[in-house]
């Protein structure tokens, strides 16, 4: 069964008068429960694709069919209000998703372990702390498919261990789409790969093949 399916997806940005094609009529299919790695060089369009899958950016053409619930893209920037504290952001998420405030607070405080800085503005957080908050909040809502754009990799060893626990063990049946340049991480956790290069998505037969192709770009 397919969790996600993209058909003839195109994304074009207009910068001033120049027209820049990021993705050109690409297709992508993600099976339920699969852990898909998206590989590609900087600026290839990986984050753009993730944002379109998460419904944040809109495709210029083509359709995205979602059969399951998809998280917002866990990335640097976005989803949080920098001038508000982690706690205020949690309250915001609780309000819009109608979550139980106390349960969520306990879960997030325990998972993110930000201590007193949980009550400081998010803009004062280090990237690792930002990642911890982003993860904790998105795991507080049970999505079927999580979109991860690099953020796990900035965490410390302990945080990566926790992510592994929560995301890959407890929620092992979920679909995962990961953008990363950390091949060790991908080798550990992903089982499929696609390569974005030259405005197209190239399906790879195995993760190893994908990584080889990525290195030979």
């Amino acid at each position: 069964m397919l969790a996600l399916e993209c058909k003839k997806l195109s994304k074009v940005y207009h910068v001033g008068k120049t027209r820049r094609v990021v993705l050109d009529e690409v297709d992508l299919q993600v099976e339920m429960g699969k852990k898909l790695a998206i590989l590609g060089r900087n600026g290839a369009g990986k984050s753009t694709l993730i944002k379109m899958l998460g419904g944040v950016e809109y495709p210029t053409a083509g359709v995205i069919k979602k059969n399951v619930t998809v998280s917002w893209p866990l990335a640097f920037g976005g989803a949080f209000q920098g001038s508000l504290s982690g706690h205020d952001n949690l309250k915001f998420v609780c309000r819009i998703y109608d979550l139980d405030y106390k349960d969520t607070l306990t879960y997030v405080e325990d998972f993110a372990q930000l201590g007193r800085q949980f009550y400081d503005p998010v803009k004062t957080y280090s990237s690792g702390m930002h990642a911890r908050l982003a993860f904790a909040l998105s795991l507080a809502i049970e999505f079927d498919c999580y979109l991860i754009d690099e953020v796990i990799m900035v965490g410390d060893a302990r945080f990566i261990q926790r992510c592994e626990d929560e995301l890959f063990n407890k929620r092992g049946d979920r679909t995962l789409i990961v953008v990363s340049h950390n091949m060790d991480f991908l080798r550990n956790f992903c089982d499929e790969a696609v390569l974005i290069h030259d405005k197209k998505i190239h399906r790879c037969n195995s993760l190893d093949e994908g990584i080889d192709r990525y290195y030979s770009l």
Partner: protein
Amino acid sequence: MYLGHVNMRYNDSSGLIMNRRSAARHQFPSLWQAFLAQGRVIFALIMREIHTRYGRENIGFLWVIGEPILFCAGVAIVWTAIRPSYEHGVQMTAMVVTGYVPLTMWRHTMGRAVKAYEVNSSLLFHQLVTPLDIILARTILEVVGTILAGAIVLGGAVGFGYMKAPADWGLVYGGMGFITFFCVGFSLVIAALTELSDLLEKAMGIISYLSIPWTGTFFMIDWMPAHYRWILEDTSPMANSIEMIRAGVFGLDVVPHYSIFFLFVSCMLLLIIGLYMTKRIRPYIKLS
């Protein structure tokens, strides 16, 4: 077709909590659930707006009312002090209060609507948040703040004897209702247009300043030469509703020029255009 019931399979703890945390719950809402969700999102956005704008220090969210009060009361006091107390047979303070409260609402809602989507684009990461929620939250906050401030300023002016209590409250409420109606539609249109055009965003300050005469804030239409009255009477919802408020405040002391038919049609038209633009704007919002 929704296939993902993994949420139900996962976890051994109480099923109720899992259910509430499940994102699938928001997937296919009934009309009523969608309505509740929209209410929740707008409330969350209003709370967030209050916290980002006013913080938690000193009087905090009371600034929502405090800011327009200082504006309206300040102008009312200065004008009362420097201008003759009666002009064309009506009290100066009452003229300022009845004009400035609507003007403040219009200028504040407009100010908050300019580029509202771009500055809030990080919120659009959450699928439940739509552009309409963002602009409604901002507009509601300003409208409520201005109305409360207006009530306090009016109460103060009447209490201290600088103006008489309104002769007909119904017309005052009606006029404020139409001002609100107009401001909501106007901010929807401005939010969408400034998102599309940086030039308009930069010009908004000048446009709003130059259009103050068109709002009829500081004079009544009856004071204009008869053959120019149509400029406000037939084109300006602001001037029409301010005339209506003044008809309520001054009663038989003034000759008001307003048309409820014109107000209703123009405000409704603006709202429909605004809603249509808001519905179409999402792909054009620049994400930060």
